[in-house]
């Protein structure tokens, strides 16, 4: 029983981190048709903000609060200066985001001297959950992810601004004719996606550590999540990232379970378990090329 709780908690925790990373990526991809290859660096910027706050002698939680806003401003500037000019050709826009990501990543590598830095979580240690000790900070991340998902959903489906965004997505021409400034909306959406990435980075950096490659580590899995879930829906990528996020610790756990009298761990090395995530995801994409959810656009 203890093991089951631990397993469920760990799977939930890693899924939450993936959902946080993917949410921003999916918002931009769904709304604007651009795959933001610099998304990992927005995550990194969020993490870096917490580090800067700490260096300035401010508490980590303040950095985590500020990160989404600061990264949103960075995203807004990037949208106005570069991305705005490239909506007509999404492939070029994608390459531009890659270049911007590379610049941000290498810049931060210089700024932190290529080192790894440990960042303290605002709530350290463990808490007891049904008699099992679990990481307090991971529990908070699971909770915040849930809150954020609900807030995003309400924002997009229940507010007039959300309605405008959905309208501009369905039919940009008609939206413009109805007096909706799509330029402004796209800029906002991009900044919003960046803010989500910044928050993801700020919240997860205590679990790992700050290094220039923090974002890249998650980018490939995040793309796979969006593919798996389906572009153009809100729930799809969340489901996709939850599945990918569950598979990462899931396969490691699977190694510990005897199956038909054989220890799976003897057959699957940890190295292979990591690759299996991609293989399984690609097989699913092969049979459901449009992802899990293809209908019910918000």
């Amino acid at each position, binding site marked *: 029983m203890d093991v089951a709780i631990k397993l469920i908690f760990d799977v939930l925790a890693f899924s939450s981190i993936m959902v946080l990373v993917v949410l921003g990526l999916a918002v931009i991809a769904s709304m604007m048709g651009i795959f933001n290859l610099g998304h990992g660096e927005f995550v990194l910027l969020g993490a870096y903000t917490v580090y800067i706050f700490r260096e300035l002698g401010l508490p980590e939680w303040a950095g985590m609060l500020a990160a989404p806003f600061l990264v949103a401003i960075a995203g807004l500037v990037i949208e106005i200066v570069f991305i705005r000019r490239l909506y007509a050709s999404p492939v070029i826009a994608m390459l531009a985001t890659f270049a911007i990501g590379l610049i941000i990543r290498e810049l931060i590598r*210089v700024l932190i001297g290529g080192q790894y830095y440990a960042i303290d979580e605002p709530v350290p240690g463990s808490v007891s959950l049904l008699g099992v000790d679990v990481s307090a900070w991971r529990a908070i991340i699971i909770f915040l992810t849930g809150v954020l998902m609900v807030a995003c959903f309400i924002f997009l489906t229940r507010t007039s601004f959300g309605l405008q965004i959905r309208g501009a997505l369905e039919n940009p021409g008609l939206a413009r004719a109805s007096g909706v400034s799509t330029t402004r909306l796209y800029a906002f959406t991009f900044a919003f996606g960046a803010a989500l990435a910044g928050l993801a980075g700020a919240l997860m950096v205590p679990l790992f550590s700050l290094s220039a490659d923090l974002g890249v580590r998650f980018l490939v899995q995040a793309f796979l999540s969006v593919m798996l879930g389906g572009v153009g829906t809100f729930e799809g990528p969340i489901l996709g990232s939850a599945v990918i996020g569950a598979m990462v610790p899931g396969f490691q756990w699977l190694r510990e379970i005897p199956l038909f009298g054989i220890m799976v761990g003897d057959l699957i090395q940890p190295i292979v378990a990591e690759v299996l995530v991609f293989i399984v995801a690609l097989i699913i994409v092969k049979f459901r090329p449009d992802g899990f959810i293809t209908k019910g656009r918000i």
Partner: protein
Amino acid sequence: MANKHANGGGGITRRSLLRGAGALTAAGWVAGFSGGWILRPRGAFAAAPIKFGVATDITGAIAPSGNSNWQVIQLAVKKINDAGGIGGRPIELYLEDTASDPKVAVGNVLKLIQQHKVDVVVGGITSAMREAIKNPIVRRGKTLYLYPQLYEGQECTEHLYCTGPTPAQQCDELIPYLMNTHGKKRFAMPSANYRWPQLLNKYARALIEKNGGEVVFEEYYPLDQLEYSATVAKIKSEGVDCVFNTIIPPGLQAFTKQLYESGFQKDGGAHTCVYFDENSVNYVPERELEGVYTCLDYFHTVDDPVGAQLQKEYAEMFPGTKYLFTAGSAATGAYRAVKFYEAAVKKTGGDLSREAVSAAIDDVAITDVPGGDSRMVPGTGHCALNMYVAQAKGGSYEILSSANMVPPQECG
């Protein structure tokens, strides 16, 4: 002033090197045409200088260690030159950046040998780097090569001398200490998937089994794996009492956090990681580091007047530097390398030919190095070292046990 380059640059790109160029020239630095750097000795010397090549990771992922090696070598050379050089000949330093990238490194190392015709090369930190540059230096370049980092052993190339600890030196004291003093019997070996952990584990496992212990599992993870919940759960459920950890960053931080949060140490488990030193608190939070065992050839807390004096001089030469003079980053090995070379050249009476120096260095002994005296073990290319078993306490290390002149047990 030379420290300005090392501090401000963060040691990461060519651009930051260029930014420091003004300060470097002021400090006696001359930029080579090739992009490398030369540090000429100060003062007047009658004899021609000895050309001392340094090939280390000034930029890239290993830059923090590479820069500390480079700074420590500058200190060692400055002290020798201030004392009149080796037999009246000063040392001139030639630096090439190996950029944490073996492909870049080979070309730059060849510059040291072909263009500058250096008499000796010190450098390389990772095993991959050593493998990449040893042939250009030793075989094609016919130059003496000194390798400073703790490593997995089995490097027996002629004219290549290792000045860092071997698996035997790191394990022979540590593992019996953990087993006999603390009664640890059930070991887990979570590891990064490359050569160093594999060979180190092989040695450690034999020692554990010889002492009546058991290795519960030995597993290799991708270097950037970030999720270790299943591993940590297994450590708990299998009743492991000692984790012999050879995971490296970026996987390291996630693993240490998950291990800590599982309450493993709180429940009396021993966590050991043999490359942890005074730098580790930068990348592992202090409370997770607390109580970790390690075994190296030097710690700042070793009762060692020579080491204390060197630390003081290092701090004066590079005030406020973030690149510490520690053992885990190979800096103590780099310092020994310079001293071994000095002792060997003294013995040859100034003959710098590779064969003569190599023959002389083979059984040379040195004093005035951090951590205590050291001596090359003849015919092995490795040195006997004083080793210290230490435990992290409040950000520094408490020395628990030590052994003098531990033999390397390599290439014998």
